[in-house]
């Protein structure tokens, strides 16, 4: 296994009108190829900021970070990752196929190959036949699946997901969690996943990074060795509940439940 994301003493301080805000403080983290790592914590703990630093959407103010052995900016230029946002963020004037085609067009990929990849990735997220539909004709869950297909279509090494299912209802979320696991098993991508749901983190991850707020820092990293085969029912097993309890304890000790 090789390390794909490595940070040492990473700091990020935002200068705001109310003075400096320590969004991230002394983050030391290693993520290896093929892992599924979740960042969990209350809002304000810096989990999304950390993901954005990895994606080169925010610049750290101290410490070092490497992605695929190079800086985040070089990794972004090399199109090392696909990013999935909190909302599907599909362009309303493009069909589902057109939306998936967007990154491919930006990257100058030929029309034939685009068509082929759109079909392949729609199939991967179980949306075959929806390429001619416009986003508003799809449900929220389907839209988010289309946005995952868009993030995967240029075959990046990594998938960075920022609370992708946060806006969906629990039933749809369960379904998509199951599909995401299958997708991960199929594609062997490294996934970094931000969430504020304990069951979601435990169900999906190989490792869970528990973060705590003010300043945003890593409180604890918990191994989540539930194995590769994870049906939804696994969430009622003692092992699952034990890890969930561990995460909740971590959050409590990290002052996440205080005002």
């Amino acid at each position, binding site marked *: 296994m090789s390390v794909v994301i490595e940070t040492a003493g990473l700091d990020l301080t935002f200068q705001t009108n109310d003075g400096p805000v320590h969004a991230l403080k002394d983050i030391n983290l290693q993520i290896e190829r093929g892992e599924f790592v979740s960042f969990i914590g209350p809002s304000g703990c810096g989990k999304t900021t950390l993901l954005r630093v990895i*994606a080169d*959407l925010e610049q750290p103010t101290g410490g070092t970070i490497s992605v695929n052995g190079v800086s985040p900016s070089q990794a*972004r*230029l090399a*199109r090392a*990752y*696909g*990013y999935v*946002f*909190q*909302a599907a*963020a599909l*362009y*309303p*004037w*493009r*069909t589902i196929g057109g939306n998936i085609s*967007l*990154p491919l*067009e*930006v*990257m100058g990929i030929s029309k034939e190959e685009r068509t082929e990849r759109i079909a392949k990735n729609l199939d991967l997220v179980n949306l075959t036949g929806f390429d001619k539909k*416009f986003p*508003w004709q799809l449900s929220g869950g389907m839209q988010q699946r289309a946005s995952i297909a868009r993030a995967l279509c240029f075959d990046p090494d990594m998938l960075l997901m920022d609370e992708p299912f946060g806006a969906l209802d629990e039933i749809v979320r369960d379904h998509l969690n199951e599909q995401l696991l299958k997708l991960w098993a199929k594609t062997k991508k490294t996934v970094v996943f931000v969430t504020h749901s304990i069951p979601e983190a435990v169900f999906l991850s190989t490792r869970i990074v528990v973060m705590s707020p003010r300043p945003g820092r890593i409180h604890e990293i918990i191994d989540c060795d539930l194995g590769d085969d994870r049906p939804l029912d696994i969430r009622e097993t003692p092992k699952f509940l034990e890890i969930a309890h561990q995460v909740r304890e971590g959050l409590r000790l990290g002052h996440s439940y205080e005002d």
Partner: protein
Amino acid sequence: MQEREGLSAFIFDRLLPVGIVVIVILVLWYGFAVLMNAQFEQDQAARANVEISTSQLVANTMSQERPVLPAPHQVASEIWKTTALKKITSKRSLVYHAGITLSSTFLGFVMGTALGIGLAVLIVHSNVLDRSLMPWIITSQTVPILAVAPMIIVVLNAIGISGLLPKALISAYLSFFPVAVGMVKGLRSPDVMHLDLMRTYNSSKAQVFWKLRWPSAVPFLFTSMKVAVAISLVGAIVGELPTGAVAGLGARLLTGSYYGQTIQIWSALISAAVLAAVLVMLVDLASRIVMRRMGMAR
């Protein structure tokens, strides 16, 4: 309330509300015509030393040659006489004058829209231009166009440019403003998530513009163009006033006021209003077609 369908829906939901407003306007218009023209009829009667009955008075107020306020049917018959019954090439044909006004409206609208879009693109891509251009753009519209129009016409005439272009320039001067303001807003309308998404693809500024900013701005463009086309017509009419009233709806207004031809003034006014409404409707139609093709109309 139960849903209506087909013809009855059209009659009750569309025709009836519009129809009622039209009837109210016509009733008020007739009322004011009688009130405002009555004085003249009474003076006439007094001068001729005859008694005039109320019904005769009312009838007379609606058939004066130069009424203070012409009655709707007088305006309607004047419009009919000067459109349907005159050859289009005739100097007395309202269609001829409307055509003159329309051509400079159209040219000015196209120039103004292009200028507005161009300025918006510059402003969105440069903070310096945003700070330096925007105050001038706003100031330009605080200058009364009636004061500027003669100067533009005279100055351009002095350097040998006359006819369509000076009038179109006045239309452009008015119409670029809503387009520039609307497009600045439109080109800045993509949300942070969409912009971040383009950044993760490492896309160039040109790609961000063509694939994100421009399509996001299209609804704003059409809204601005609806305002722009209407004030282009106003600009064209204003531009026709200082040219010595040669041709165009503006010229009809001016000659009408020279000779006290109120009926002619009102028929030119009504034609201009109808023309503006038709232009706005055309832009709206284009907007619907484009939005449907872009998949944004539901």
